């Protein structure tokens, strides 16, 4: 354990959180492979089935290395109560054929990492009101929620960098207008602004549209803060001596911006990215939660969590909280990353 805030500790924090985040994103992008079922596949006879138990020991006591399950059926005459049929065992099989899916929308495939023979169903994280597998939906939902945050933050920072960079570099009336508009955007509480912009679209839009729209809206609403930050850096950065020297050698404006001025802001940009992504993930989740984002049947962590508003779900089926609980580790990773990057930038510039 090195000293908190020391260089080594910082770099290690950056590396650890980055690699864990990479793993997370890889697993949601490979959702089709990792998830045993299609996220929209319904089992109407199994609503709110509790998480399945993987067994290793048979009733007679023999231990098996390969986990197996029993078929779970609802008790006759009851709702939401299930029992295992202890007759036949269904061993876990690897790389089985199942529902077709596409990886990243291109590569079409039918193999799943694991699966069980029909009629056994395995809900690692339980099932929802239509008997859909929460585990599969969580993975697919991550594709929407996590990726939307990432794209929206990149868009906001891209816009912010361009506008803030130009405003700071050229100054004058462009700068004035840019900063006044930024002030207007910052004067609005952010969620209210987001909802106001969301109101421009019809209530029910198809999921792909909704996803793209969310990314664009969140990105467009968020450009103001990074733009102000970048403008500040460019404002002082363009007067640094190596920049002045390059200008004296006859470098063009665009070359100066690209090669000498904007790179000075790189540290801040990356730190901002780590700050903004979790915010925007949460924005997508919140909008979808209120039914204004990505809608059913496509899963997003927000619209999955919306089910937990129901009284009976809230009190009886804890696994329906999982999409919300899953946010915390993601936020923690980004938070660690942002902290470490921030300290690293502070160290380098001081």
């Amino acid at each position, binding site marked *: 354990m090195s000293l908190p805030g020391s260089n080594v500790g910082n770099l290690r924090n950056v590396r650890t959180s980055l690699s864990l985040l990479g793993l997370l994103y890889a697993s949601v992008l490979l959702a089709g492979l990792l998830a045993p079922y299609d996220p929209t596949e319904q089992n109407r006879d199994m609503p709110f089935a509790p998480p399945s138990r993987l067994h290793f020991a048979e009733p007679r006591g023999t231990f098996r290395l390969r986990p197996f399950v029993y078929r779970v059926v609802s008790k006759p005459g009851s709702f939401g109560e299930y029992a295992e049929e202890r007759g036949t065992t269904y061993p876990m099989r690897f790389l089985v054929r199942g529902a077709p899916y596409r990886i990243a929308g291109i590569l079409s495939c039918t193999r799943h990492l694991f699966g069980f023979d029909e009629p056994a169903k395995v809900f690692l994280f339980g099932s929802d009101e239509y008997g859909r597998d929460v585990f599969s939906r969580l993975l697919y939902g991550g594709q929407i929620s996590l990726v939307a945050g990432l794209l929206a933050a990149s868009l906001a920072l891209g816009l912010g960098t361009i506008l803030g960079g130009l405003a700071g570099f050229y100054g004058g009336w462009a700068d004035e207008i840019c900063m006044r508009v930024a002030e207007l955007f*910052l004067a*609005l509480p952010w969620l*209210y602004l987001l*909802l106001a912009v969301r*109101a421009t679209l019809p209530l029910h839009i198809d999921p792909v549209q909704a996803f793209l729209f969310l990314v664009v809206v969140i990105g467009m609403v968020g450009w103001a803060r990074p733009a102000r930050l970048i403008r500040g850096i460019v404002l002082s950065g363009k007067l640094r001596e190596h920049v002045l020297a390059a200008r004296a050698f006859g470098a063009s404006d665009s070359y100066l911006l690209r090669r000498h001025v904007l790179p000075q802001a790189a540290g801040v940009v990356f730190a901002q990215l780590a700050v903004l992504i979790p915010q925007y993930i949460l924005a997508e*989740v919140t909008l979808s939660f209120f039914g204004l984002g990505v809608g059913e049947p496509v899963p997003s962590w927000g619209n999955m969590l919306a089910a937990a508003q129901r*009284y009976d779900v809230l009190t009886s089926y804890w696994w329906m909280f999982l999409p919300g609980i899953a946010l915390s580790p993601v936020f*923690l990773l980004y938070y660690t990353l942002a902290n470490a990057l921030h300290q690293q930038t502070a160290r380098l510039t001081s």
Partner: protein
Amino acid sequence: MRYLCWRMVHGLLVLVGVSVLSFVFAALAPGDFLSEMKLDPRISPATVAALRDRYGLDLPLPLKYAQWLRSVRRGELGFSFAYNSPVATLLWPRARNTLLLTVTATTLAWLIAVPLGAWSASHPGRWGDRLCAGVTTALLVVPELVLGLGLLLVAVRTGYFPVGGMMSARFADLGPWGKLKDLALHLFLPASALILLNLPILVRHVRASLIEVLAAPFIQAARARGVPHRRLLFRDALRAAANPLISLVGLSIAALLSGSLVVEALMSWPGIGPLLLGAIAARDLHVLVGTVLCSTLFLLVGNLLADALLYLADPRLRVDQA
């Protein structure tokens, strides 16, 4: 004083800008409140057309805006189709409720954060400080949706607190003391959600700025002369650390309002948050503009108050102005 006037004018300009902005956004939306009516076979097209004409729904955007401005001058802030009433009568009680919730939550959060942060700052690195840091980090990474749902779950399970709403059905029959108690019970859940949301940020800032001040030479000198620790901490250090903290009050309002929207909607607190969500669903243009404006107004006034507080707290600012 001139600065204050300038700030007010600026604030007014921002409000006008925001109203134009939200009008444009809302006008881009396809359909309006009456477009659903067109599909209803029981309502004749002539009625719909008459209604559209009466409320000026087919006017071009600048005229619509002018119409709205006139109604603002009358103090109505436009007309709500969904509630069939002027927006102002709808908005003010809601705004008051949001204010009640956010102000209570902020005050309590500061009252908890200052001693906690001060204690943490005066024992840096000890187990208590570490525990505090751990808890604040944990709270920081829990999103408000989950926090709100979690608190609801607790309320439902224990049954100590009413779930949702602002007052009981028998509120009107209660005495003044009973009314206060009932309101406090209803306020408890949403307020604690907001407090838990804000606490980590506040505690961290209090701790960081106090640690900085405690290392300053004048504190060392005072300590060497035997000023008791507690007096040093709360009288001298806190006063010196007040500046960035007061700025934080202004900065945290935006986050507070956004958090409040979610909490209000989750716990059905009748504030402006649920009103906005309803207005989006119903395509109720003027209510939408009204709520967005109202939230902006809160933010501006909050920032102004924070600046005024800063002006009072920091003699250097006063000297510069004079």
